């Protein structure tokens, strides 16, 4: 079921086309990666989904229709520019933000205790927000995003300022929410986290959609015939069907000649007595795909 359905939205600020004819949808029960270089139009796109900005053209359907005040109560939003009231206590700050999402104060009180304990912030609930560390404030913002049990979660760089333990905890929570059938849009530059968590991604650049689909689909688009090999001894200097090879992270990356098949190369290595411990088709990482695509876009823009 589509929680968000976006059709050909555009937004211009002055002379800058922030978003240009963008279309995508987000399903319930998935983590959707919204990716792109700085200034690509991600934040504008998110703000249009949240009805903070109105698109110049196009159509946005949220939970089956246009955005309403009631629907806003079912959305959790962690913006890129973090912010909390600095001069009041953590408890009062989170209570205010939760009640603005339509939660009764009594319910907030009960759920807040659980969340504060989960995020290890219960002991500092009476401290002023400005007295908390950056990591603590980041966790507090995550509580504000999740406490009202939203159907749609939009999070921008959720792992910034978190240590590995808290990063893992947030990942677990996001996966748990996905399993509960919530839709999650995650915008981040940490490609390893995207690979680990996201079911589908949209890569935008200069307001355009550049890549859109499941992670596997996209990676397969960029997969070549290259092979990664680990062996106990150095590989022979010449292997039929291999154009060149180089070391990558302690392994040998074999670039195959045109028409050569990985199976033939494997057979040849075994016949030559090479003791192989790992042999796999080299799938490009999302990071590599990101850099490649964005660079290509930049060349196209300049050329």
């Amino acid at each position: 079921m589509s929680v968000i359905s976006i059709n050909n939205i555009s937004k211009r600020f002055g002379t800058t086309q922030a978003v240009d004819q963008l279309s995508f949808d987000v399903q319930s029960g998935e983590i959707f990666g919204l990716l792109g270089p700085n200034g690509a139009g991600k934040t504008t796109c998110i703000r249009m989904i949240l009805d903070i900005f109105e698109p110049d053209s196009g159509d946005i359907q949220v939970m089956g229709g246009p955005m309403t005040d009631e629907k806003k109560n079912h959305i959790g939003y962690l913006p890129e520019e973090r912010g909390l009231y600095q001069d009041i206590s953590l408890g009062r700050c989170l209570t205010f933000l939760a009640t603005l999402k339509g939660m009764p104060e009594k319910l907030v009180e009960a759920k807040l205790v659980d969340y504060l304990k989960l995020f290890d912030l219960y002991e500092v609930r009476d401290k002023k927000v400005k007295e908390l560390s950056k990591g603590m404030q980041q966790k507090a913002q995550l509580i504000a995003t999740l406490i009202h049990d939203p159907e749609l979660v939009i999070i921008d760089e959720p792992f910034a300022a978190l240590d590995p333990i808290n990063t893992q905890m947030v990942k677990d929570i996001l996966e748990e929410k996905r399993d509960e059938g919530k839709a999650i849009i995650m915008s981040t530059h940490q490609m390893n986290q995207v690979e680990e968590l996201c079911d589908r991604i949209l890569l935008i650049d200069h307001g355009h959609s550049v890549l859109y689909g499941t992670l596997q689909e996209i990676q397969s688009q960029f997969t070549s015939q290259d092979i990664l090999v680990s062996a106990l001894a150095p590989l022979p200097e010449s292997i039929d069907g291999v154009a060149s090879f180089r070391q990558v992270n302690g392994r040998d990356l074999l670039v195959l000649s045109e028409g050569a098949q990985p199976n033939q190369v494997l057979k040849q290595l075994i016949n030559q007595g090479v003791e192989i411990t790992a042999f796999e088709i080299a799938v490009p990482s999302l990071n590599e795909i990101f850099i490649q695509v964005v660079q290509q876009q930049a060349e196209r823009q300049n050329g």
Partner: protein
Amino acid sequence: MKKTWIVLKTEFINTITRRSFILTLILVPLVPALILGVMSLLKGKETVAEPGSSISDRKLEDQLPQGYVDLADMIKSTPEWLGNEQLIAYQKEADARQATLSGAISGYYVIQPDYMESGAVRYVSREYNSLTFLDSTWMINNLIRYNLLGGDVEQFDAFYNPVQVHYFDLEPDILEENTDISNPAAFYVPYGMTMLFYILIITSASLMMNNVAKEKENRVMEILVSSIKPSELLAGKIFGLGLVGLLQLVVWLGSALIMLRLGGGVFHMLAEIQLSPGILIWGIIFFVLGYLLYGTIMAGVGALVGSVKEASQATFIVILPILIPLMLVGPIIERPHSSLAVVLSLIPFTAPNTIMTRMAATEIPFWQPLTAIGLLIITAMFLIRAVAGMFKAQLLLTGQKFSLGLFINTLRGKHPEAMNT
């Protein structure tokens, strides 16, 4: 509407529980109250006068009376208002001396036999204190004056207050009475009212501006506008912080009224000041309207700029109109019915201060505060609509460098292009 209420409640509670607010709320009336208390202790034996009384009505409450011995045989009668308890007549100095030694009186005057030629009077006491002595000589002075004038109360009053000046403007058709500014109370009470209203309105309005600017600076605004309509946010803030200002007004003005009543026991000047409780009601009305006007403008400034620092720099330009009655407070108090005072009372941006200053100085025609209220309501409604238009997400999520031109253009709905991707 529910979210407006949540914002209102939160803003009110967050502000009134702030330590700096509580201290200001309490200390502002507490400091003058302490001064009054200390002065009261120091002047322990001073006389007390009823508010509005003249010299001849004074009731004496000295802890110890004084005595006198009339060797010149000139005291024929004692006025009623002086009574026989505070200044006791003795036939012989020995009796007066005995009364002093026994503690029945604090001391005694001896009017010398050649008083009519020399004016000589001796004062004898157990412990001479120059401060309290100077304060208490008015009784014997007035007793002698009274008898020199043949014991006639009317003549005495006429002698004591020979001139009752009434000030008038000479204008083609009307003669309006002005304020006697030679009377300190007649000047300082309206002046105090001007200052009080200036401080109250500007404090509350600045609170509003800082609040909005701080939310932008703290970057909470984006979370807020994804949860609540900007116009609901504005309404919640205006009413929440307005209530804070109202609380300050009631506490400060109420304390001032109480102090004026109690202070009469310490300072005769305070006793002569009469502020009707009705001024509190007018005060609340004009504070609310003044706050709505300036608070809304300040909210607009907060929405426009990017930080609290920039907002503070913009404050002076915005509050300039409310400074006008402050700068012209002398002429307004001296001539509360002049054209200048009336015009300033009707201009919405100067009306709250000017009207309250004039009301503290004199009675003003009823149509003037009513017209001022009408004009203030119309202007405030216009401004609230215009600033609600400024409370758009696109503006709240960006920061502009403040200029009056930009502010007016934005108020008119010509938003600057906000760049944010």
